[in-house]
């Protein structure tokens, strides 16, 4: 955790809750509410990468969107550069938005096929009314992400998936953001291409010093890029801390099971590992289990887990985890 008195974090999320209302089934009157994110808190320091991992339905993408206020949180606060985003006026939010950008998973859907690459990259500058020669800026951005100046006149269909993702990154960089939410930015790419885009993220951060919230289900990519990691399950953070500690000494049974389920690309290692086989699937977020949300799949669950919801506690290895029976 950052010492907030001396060095305030760039981003601070406290008690974030996001509920979605669903139409009731079979025309009934009772409204169904899905709590996609429940009481999530974390901080991101300047120049830091926070990895947000979890399986489908864990709420990781919803957290990313709430941070940018692309969707409105139900409750909780998101503080960016010391300002509470829920209490800034339209004009100020507009200014803050320049500093917070997002890169999406699908490099095909996130670029307008009818706009030239140059126009797509310049669009944030136009929207924000940035004066000056955008052409030069576009060229420098293209070069920054490993593309060439003459690519600006071409259209998205002329590019491969990896190149398109670089275009999306160039667009996100146009306004010199302090924070970029990367939502599964390499999941749609083949591994040989993925490696180049991951290196690009590392290079850009070393050069420009921005922070990343890196959302992904691929745990090995997150391990490679993140300084700290938050493991989510059914809308809650189960464990959060320095990446090395979380990966090497997981204290939450879910983290441990998740890590053991990821196949290691080395047959000798892979075939000798002991694996924790979790039963069943992630329960429905419409009706999450009482107490600890992971207890229905946990081999350590006791009566206590069903009645008392565990809170995040600091462990000896330096990370926080929410479990009544943490791993040593």
């Amino acid at each position, binding site marked *: 955790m950052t010492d907030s008195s001396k060095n305030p974090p760039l981003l601070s999320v406290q008690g974030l809750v996001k509920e979605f209302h669903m139409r009731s089934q079979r025309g009934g009157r009772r409204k169904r509410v899905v709590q996609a994110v429940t009481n999530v808190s974390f901080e991101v320091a300047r120049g830091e990468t926070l990895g947000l991992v979890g*399986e489908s339905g864990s709420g990781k993408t919803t957290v990313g969107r709430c941070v940018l206020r692309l969707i409105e949180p139900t409750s909780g606060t998101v503080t960016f550069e010391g300002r509470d985003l829920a209490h800034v006026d339209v004009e100020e939010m507009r200014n803050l938005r320049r500093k917070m950008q997002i890169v999406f998973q699908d490099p095909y859907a996130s670029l307008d096929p009818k706009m030239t690459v140059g126009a797509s990259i310049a669009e944030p500058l136009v929207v924000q009314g940035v004066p000056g020669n955008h052409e030069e800026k576009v060229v420098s951005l293209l070069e920054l992400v490993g593309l060439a100046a003459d690519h600006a006149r071409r259209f998205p269909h002329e590019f491969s998936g990896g190149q398109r993702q670089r275009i999306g990154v160039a667009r996100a960089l146009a306004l010199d953001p302090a924070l970029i939410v990367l939502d599964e930015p390499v999941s749609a790419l083949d*591994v040989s291409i993925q*490696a*180049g885009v991951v*290196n690009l993220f590392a290079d850009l951060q070393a050069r420009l010093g921005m922070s990343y919230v890196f959302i992904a289900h691929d745990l090995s990519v997150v391990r490679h890029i993140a300084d700290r990691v938050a493991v989510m399950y059914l809308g809650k953070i189960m464990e959060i801390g320095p990446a090395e500690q979380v990966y090497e000494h997981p204290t939450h049974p879910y983290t441990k099971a998740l890590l053991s*389920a990821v196949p290691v*690309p*080395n047959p000798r290692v892979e*075939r000798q590992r002991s694996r924790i086989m979790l039963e069943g*699937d992630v329960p429905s977020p419409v009706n999450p289990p009482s107490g600890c949300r992971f207890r229905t799949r946990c081999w350590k669950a006791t009566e206590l887990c069903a009645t008392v919801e565990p809170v995040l506690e600091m462990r000896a290895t330096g990370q926080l985890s929410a479990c009544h029976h943490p791993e040593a």
Partner: protein
Amino acid sequence: MSAPVLEIRDLTVTFTTPLGPLAAVRGIDLDVRAGEMLAVVGESGSGKSVSFLAAMGLLPKTATITGSVLLDGRQLVGASSKELRAVRGQLMSMIFQDPLSALNPVHRVGDQIAEMLQAHQKLSDKAAKARSVDLLEIVGIPQSGDRALQYPHEFSGGMRQRVVIAIAIANSPKVLIADEPTTALDVTVQAQILEVIQKVQKQFGTAVVLITHDLGVVARVCERVNVMYAGRVVERAEIGDIFDAPSHPYTRGLLASLPQAGVERLSPIAGFPPNMLRPPAGCAFRARCPHAVAECGETLPTLRQIGASHSACIRAEEVLTSS
């Protein structure tokens, strides 16, 4: 070493497109041995799925297929749809990435399994029903009797893939082709489905062809590996050799690009795969290859034996000894 149950020889698949012929598979030889777990790995567009869709007779009319696919001695290339129908689901089955689109949403899952049974066997409705409940049990669906009466939307993603596997193995096929069977699933569910597939392979002696891009999955469950690139098999080896001593530069590049603990900087493969509307002369990987020499552009390299492996690289010896 057991005899091959599926023998693919010089298979080519060419699609007719508005932009001209697209060479998706450009002459592959591949054996699937009885009861083995064989991996076919490669990136998007490498022809790994198309090869086996061709073998199954599942490609649209825009595809022209040449070469030979022998399943248990029967020629499948050029076979009539009637012959293919008798083979599919009986001798060879295929499962896909998305289990929901493989199931019929308006029929109970038990009936869908029974339909597959009765398509190939003379079975009474009662016997087919009983057998479909057994099959659900085999693939690890609890309360299989009740679950057989439910519809696909009542199952989770992992459970649906189990149902699809139950349908695929209903008639004890000799070969099960699993095309990215766990790609759409969460990693904890992936582990369960891989276990089911391994169980089917071991318990029933079904040969499994696992088509995947995930080398971790390959390392976990497969015995032999075929690596495909641009419509060709570029390397074939036992699992240990592929990871310890890859003899094709593409295989090496693929392994090097994976994030691994302790590796500070990833090593991507430069460039991107060729456009198969205009496949390059010679080795298709040479534009991205750190070992390429002028000779690589002259002839299309074929698989040749290098130690215990087979590699389609004319410089495989140098590749093996380079660091």
